[in-house]
């Protein structure tokens, strides 16, 4: 993975954009796992490792990253600017040095042009720093304007870099053209201005401009005599008394002027914009919201609450075909597992009612005894029937099932059991949802053996009548 911060940022930004629709739990697991692997290998996890890890896992074939694609586009943009810079540089220099043999090439015009170039270079840098994008139309043409906020913040600097690259190419092409022209033509430079300027003033100006190279190439610093000698005026077609070779002595100054004040500032600003770009990319990466989220995911443990098991659809069949039956007229009543304690309501008891207690605190031996006693009572009866009183809120269990199965075997054939689930207030009817399991319980017993009845309240229970499903 490249350490180029710009590519890293672009790749990272692209990866985060692609992660947007992933569930956060998945992202957390994935990145935490990566951080734990890094810890095991003694590596400090960072963005470049993370991206390399992601690419490695996705396998070969994904070598063209988003960063590479974006950078390639910018290489093309830079290339276009460089090519245009070269062409314009040659044409501009040819224009500046246009000389038909009769007129002089005005040094003042060249000075003004160099100043204009310098201002242009500075303006490019300032607009990039401020974030103004006069080149946006070009990006729109290239269909790259729908960039993420991160990319949008890089665009001014990228455009400035391209502009500076074009500027350097412009300067170098101009310089080369100048040198070629010096070789192939006899150029006559002079200086001229409408302003009332003395030669000494002009000399001090060019001297100041030549300060940077005066120690390096003294011949490229025009002397006062040369300045005085090469002034020309608009009306004069030539200046008599001057050695013609003096007109050409300006060229070292022009070369150094162009190199020092057009080419070098552009090169320096290009280096600066490249540095700024790297710095801003590194800063944007560090402050990227995706980076903060990634660091959080890597640092925080993943929590799995064991919620993967799903049996929500695996519900028991709760359809009930049975209906509550009428309470049989029988004196035998078994209170199951403490039902009817401390006392059964009076209206459930007749003077001859015999109450037995089984289940709950009673032992299994006591249950057996109750079965035997009730069996004896039922023997010889025409329609043997038993009421088993239960607590409606305690659902039927295997124990009651066993008890009734044993009763079926041991009691006279034809004996019927009616379950009577009581509410916690025995004078009120039990709640419908509590009666339903009892109805289903009797369905699971031998057909015709058991049924459910509701305690007599004097009025029919409107809920039960409606709740029985076909």
């Amino acid at each position, binding site marked *: 993975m490249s350490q180029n911060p710009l590519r890293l940022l672009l790749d990272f930004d692209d990866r985060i954009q692609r992660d947007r629709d992933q569930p956060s739990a998945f992202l957390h697991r994935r990145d935490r796992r990566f951080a734990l692997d890094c810890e095991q290998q003694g590596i400090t996890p960072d963005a470049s490792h993370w991206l390399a890890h992601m690419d490695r896992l996705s396998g070969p074939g994904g070598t063209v990253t988003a960063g590479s694609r974006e950078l390639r586009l910018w290489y093309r943009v830079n290339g276009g600017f460089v090519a245009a810079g070269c062409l314009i540089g040659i044409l501009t220099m040819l224009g500046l040095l246009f000389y038909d043999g009769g007129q002089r090439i005005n040094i003042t015009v060249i000075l003004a042009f160099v100043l204009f170039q310098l201002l242009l270079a500075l303006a490019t840098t300032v607009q990039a720093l401020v974030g103004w994008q006069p080149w946006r139309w070009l990006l729109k043409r290239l269909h790259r304007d729908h960039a993420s906020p991160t990319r949008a913040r890089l665009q001014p600097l990228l455009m400035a870099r391209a502009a500076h690259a074009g500027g350097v190419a412009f300067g170098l092409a101009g310089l080369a053209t100048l040198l070629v022209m010096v070789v192939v033509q006899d150029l006559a430079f002079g200086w001229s201005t409408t302003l009332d300027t003395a030669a000494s003033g002009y000399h001090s100006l060019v001297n100041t401009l030549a300060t940077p190279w005066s120690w390096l190439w003294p011949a490229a610093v025009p002397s006062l005599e040369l300045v005085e000698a090469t002034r020309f005026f608009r009306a004069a077609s030539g200046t008599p008394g001057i050695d013609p070779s003096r007109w050409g002595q300006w060229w070292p100054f022009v070369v150094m002027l162009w190199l020092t004040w057009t080419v070098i500032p552009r090169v320096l600003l290009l280096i600066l914009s490249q540095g700024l770009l790297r710095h801003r990319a590194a800063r944007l990466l560090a402050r990227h919201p995706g980076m903060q989220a990634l660091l959080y995911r890597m640092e925080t443990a993943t*929590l*799995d609450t064991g919620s993967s098991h799903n049996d929500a659809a695996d519900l028991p069949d709760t359809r009930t075909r049975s209906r509550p039956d009428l309470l049989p007229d029988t004196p035998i009543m078994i209170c199951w597992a403490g039902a009817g304690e401390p006392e059964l309501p009076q209206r459930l008891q007749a003077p001859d009612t015999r109450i037995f207690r089984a289940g709950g605190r009673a032992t299994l031996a006591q249950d057996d005894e109750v079965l035997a006693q009730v069996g004896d009572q039922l023997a010889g009866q025409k329609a043997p029937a038993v009421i088993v009183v239960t607590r409606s809120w305690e659902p039927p269990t295997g124990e009651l099932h066993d008890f009734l199965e044993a009763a079926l075997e041991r009691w006279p054939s034809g004996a019927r059991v009616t379950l009577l689930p009581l509410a916690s207030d025995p004078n009120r009817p039990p709640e419908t949802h509590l009666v339903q399991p009892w109805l289903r319980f009797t369905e699971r017993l031998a057909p015709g053996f058991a049924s459910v009845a509701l305690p007599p309240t004097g009025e029919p229970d409107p809920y039960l009548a409606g709740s029985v499903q076909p």
Partner: protein
Amino acid sequence: MTTAPVFAVVGHPNKGKSSVVATLSQNDAIAIALEPGTTRARQDYPLTVDGQKLYTLVDTPGFQRPRRVLQWLEAHSISASDHPETVRAFVLQHRGDERFVDECELLAPIVEGAGIIYVVDGSVPYSAEHEAEMTILRWTGRPSLALINSIGEDDYSDTWQSALGQFFQVVRKFDAVRAPFEQHLSLLRAFGQLEPDWEEPLERATRFLSEQRHQRRHQSAGLIAIALEDLMSYQEKRTLTLNQVAETSDTSLAETLRDRWYRHQRKREQTLRIDIEHLYQHQRIRRQEAELQWHSQHDLFSEDTRKHWAVSKRYLATAGFGAGAVGGAGIDAMTLGSSLGTGALVGGLIGAAGSYFYGDRLLLPALNIGPLKDGLKTASFGPVQDSQFGYVVLGRAVDHWWHISHRNHAGRDLLELEPADHHWLEQLDKTSRREIQRAFDRCRKQRPLTHQQRENLTTAIEQAMSAYDDWRLNRA
């Protein structure tokens, strides 16, 4: 390294064992029904941190034949010292025996070393029938805790408490459906107190769960912020050929675009809802989506909804003042402060006045037909020009978040969202109000929020969540 504690949730049939497990394991996909025998086999629900188990909850079926089991145990035991061994022998001997399937399933994890969490229903009277079960559990010799889970309305927890106290080391009340999150944590800590070795993993678990909850709140605010940005800046566009322009009247075009815009906004709101539900591991609420209605069928765009969730003119004016002042501050900056803050004041006043006068009008987006370009015309609808719309969405989103974050995973009832009145936002601090209003203003103008602005909006929404939380608390 010690092994992670295991807790077997046991009890009589139909007393809410699965509900307790569903709530503590944050799983809304556990079968829960008012039918004994819904849980047929034991099921493990481990809590893992980075793949390392901290504890496991085991859901088990209820006791079916406790007296018979106790009788067997008593017949095979000589003294109290052999009780645990006898229970183990029972499980070994009765594996595969149809009569004791449930007992074996529930006793197996206990004889393997699990702690006992015995669940009873505190809304029904104490029943001595449970004594056989409790005695068997005592025979296992494992650390035990009893939970009084109230399924119904009545409260018999006092009698249960004294009875359970005779059998279990710790007795706690815990309403699986309604208990707030803090109670989950306190219950987990209570599990840790059953044995010294269990304290550390349970402490860690509660710490992680707490952090997770905190993070979920932040993530929810982030989701709401993005949804608000989307909803406020959404524009419905349609490109028409000249023929289409000639055939379609402006009214019908406006209607089509408006309908599509409405539909998109409703769908986006639904997506936000589902995202937040999934964040809190509520996967199944979506299945009830058809039944999920805002109370009294309050639609996102109904006047009623607006009445309930929109903010007052005064609120808008103060929020607008703050947001406007920021624009005005630019004037001060340009004059290098020589305007002595007049810019901020003027900007603030303009913002406040604008919000005050236009705040209560429903300024829905208007149809906009662009100029002819390359033989095509573009018609657009949106974005919404009414910041009240943003407050309606925000109010509904925070309300929904609150219900989801307070909903236990044992809850199986429909999610009903009753509308609140708007007073809750009045408790929001000034900075948050300003941030929200500023974000709305930017979205209205379709200017994307920067990372920092989105982060600020998220923080402001988190503050709004706290304000809503407080308001709910005080209202209750």
